């Protein structure tokens, strides 16, 4: 039955017995209290991807990020200082708390470059490393020492050009947190792929539901049936979907899939414009002229089953960062930023090697346009799911072996929340009644 070998345990799911095979309770995606706990246990404690180093081309380059998933109003500045170090700070002036970097609308993200940060309110100035360098009418203040008022830093570390921040000062180093999948991806030519298309959507569903949609391709032959030619769609639906490989390492996971149509075996399988532009959902067919993307050049974590039909790997770095590598030499990232139990902001970036001519440029254009067509369908399906599970008419749902990573995602989110609850309970026990204010502060 299976076209690709499964583990000796008999299935992918049973290879990780702690996941179980029973129907999964989706209350974690509709319970507002669970979301509040996830915010404390996950989004305030784990490493979060906020952008690529290419957005900071020189000393003084910066961009701001709104981080509602961490807490209402939370905003950070990510910048490159004089020594080339990437840093992050709370976007807040130490004088009276005005938002430091913004234009026109305080809630909107901005980017640019500057020699220093100057507050709009009273012109306090900060160096690129966060040091307070100027206080307007300094002698009007009482015993003020500028060294005591630098910008408040946020943990910021870079892996292979991906910038991450962490709001927990005690968190483990980024590379330790990302673990073996990240180690096995090192050396992939991410830095060559600097032609970027960025998308944003506000989605009326729990953040985990969109990850659910992207870590299984069981849906692909059905939901996206119309995008293929009629004959091809019928064939795909009949065969269904099987991954080449799944893997789980602690909180992170990956799915490896076959190559599909890049390039197609038969030109009749694809739409007329794809035939002219040599491109489609799976990206431009013609590989760019760079090192590091041919099958035998790929780093060890990519195409782990060493399948000749390999087409893409999707790495799911918990909690909310998807890194998807395509065989023809491009990649994309997704981030899912919850703002409520039933709302999140979805971000996507497509990264290509800069095109050298109009042929390559239009080929990438078609891939980008195609991506959006699919994303719109996926996004709308999520809202339809959220409203129905929200009724609690049914709370448990059966997941198949091709949906193992959904099982792992919900299991992992639960694990972090449960650990957090235990820690809070232990703190409350040791502090006795004195912990009352702390508990309230934790928003449990």
């Amino acid at each position, binding site marked *: 039955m299976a076209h690709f070998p499964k583990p000796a345990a008999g299935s992918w799911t049973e290879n990780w017995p702690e996941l179980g095979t029973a129907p999964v309770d989706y209350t974690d995606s509709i319970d507002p209290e669970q979301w509040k706990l996830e915010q404390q246990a996950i989004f305030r404690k784990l490493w979060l991807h906020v952008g690529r180093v290419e957005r900071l081309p020189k000393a003084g380059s910066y961009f701001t990020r709104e981080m509602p998933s961490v807490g209402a109003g939370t905003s950070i500045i990510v910048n490159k200082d004089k020594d080339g170090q990437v840093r992050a700070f709370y976007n807040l002036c130490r004088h009276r708390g005005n938002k430091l970097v913004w234009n026109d609308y305080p809630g909107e993200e901005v980017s640019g470059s500057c020699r220093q940060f100057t507050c709009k309110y009273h012109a306090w100035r900060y160096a690129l490393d966060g040091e307070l360098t100027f206080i307007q009418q300094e002698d009007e203040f009482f015993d003020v020492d500028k060294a005591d008022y630098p910008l408040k830093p946020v943990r910021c570390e870079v892996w292979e050009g991906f910038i991450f921040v962490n709001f927990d000062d005690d968190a483990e180093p980024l590379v330790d947190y990302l673990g073996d999948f990240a180690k096995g991806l090192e050396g992939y030519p991410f830095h060559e792929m600097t032609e970027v298309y960025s998308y944003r959507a506000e989605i009326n569903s729990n953040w985990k539901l969109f990850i659910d949609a992207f870590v299984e391709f069981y849906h692909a032959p059905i939901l996206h049936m119309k995008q293929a030619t009629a004959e091809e769609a019928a064939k795909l639906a009949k065969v269904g979907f099987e991954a080449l490989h799944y893997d789980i390492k602690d909180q992170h996971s990956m799915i490896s899939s076959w190559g599909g149509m890049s390039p197609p075996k038969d030109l009749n399988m694809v739409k007329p414009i794809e035939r002219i532009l040599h491109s489609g959902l799976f990206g431009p067919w013609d590989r760019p002229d760079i090192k590091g993307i041919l099958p035998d050049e790929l780093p060890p974590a990519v195409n782990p089953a060493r399948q000749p039909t390999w087409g893409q790997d999707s790495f799911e770095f918990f909690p909310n960062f998807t890194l998807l590598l395509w065989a023809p030499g491009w990649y994309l990232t997704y981030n899912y930023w919850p703002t409520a139990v039933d709302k999140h902001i979805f971000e996507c970036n497509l990264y290509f090697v800069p095109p050298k*001519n109009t042929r390559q440029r239009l080929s990438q254009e078609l891939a980008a346009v195609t991506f959006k067509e699919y994303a719109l369908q996926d996004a*709308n399906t999520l809202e339809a799911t959220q409203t129905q599970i929200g009724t609690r008419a049914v709370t448990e749902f059966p997941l198949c072996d091709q949906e193992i990573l959904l099982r792992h995602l919900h299991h992992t989110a639960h694990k972090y929340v449960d650990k957090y609850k235990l820690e809070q309970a232990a703190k409350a026990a040791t502090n006795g009644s004195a912990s009352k204010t702390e508990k309230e502060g934790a928003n449990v």
Partner: protein
Amino acid sequence: MSETNGTKERLLPEEFADLERFSDWILPTEPERYAKRLASTMEEMQNLYDVGMARLEDVMVYLDARFPLHGMPDDAKRLMHLMQSVVMVSFPVEVWKQPRVLDSGAAWVEIVREPVV
């Protein structure tokens, strides 16, 4: 063209003057092209698609033989923007048979950063 009648400035390279009637599809950014798509009839998009698809290969050969991607004169750039609109209407024409993505309902995905030719 413009020299002979003296009334209208030429927008596209002379070799592609026949595409000038689609000049309202010369749009440099994705949000403009996407909005135009949603505001157009299938007949309008089918016309652009039919003519554009027939010239797409010629356009790439013409432009790539003459200019670097980031050093095109304005008329060549406009031709490129028009071809990007051909890509934009290809899904409504080839797949959906309607301007909107099928089953996309209230969903909205916007592009926030893109390379502009």
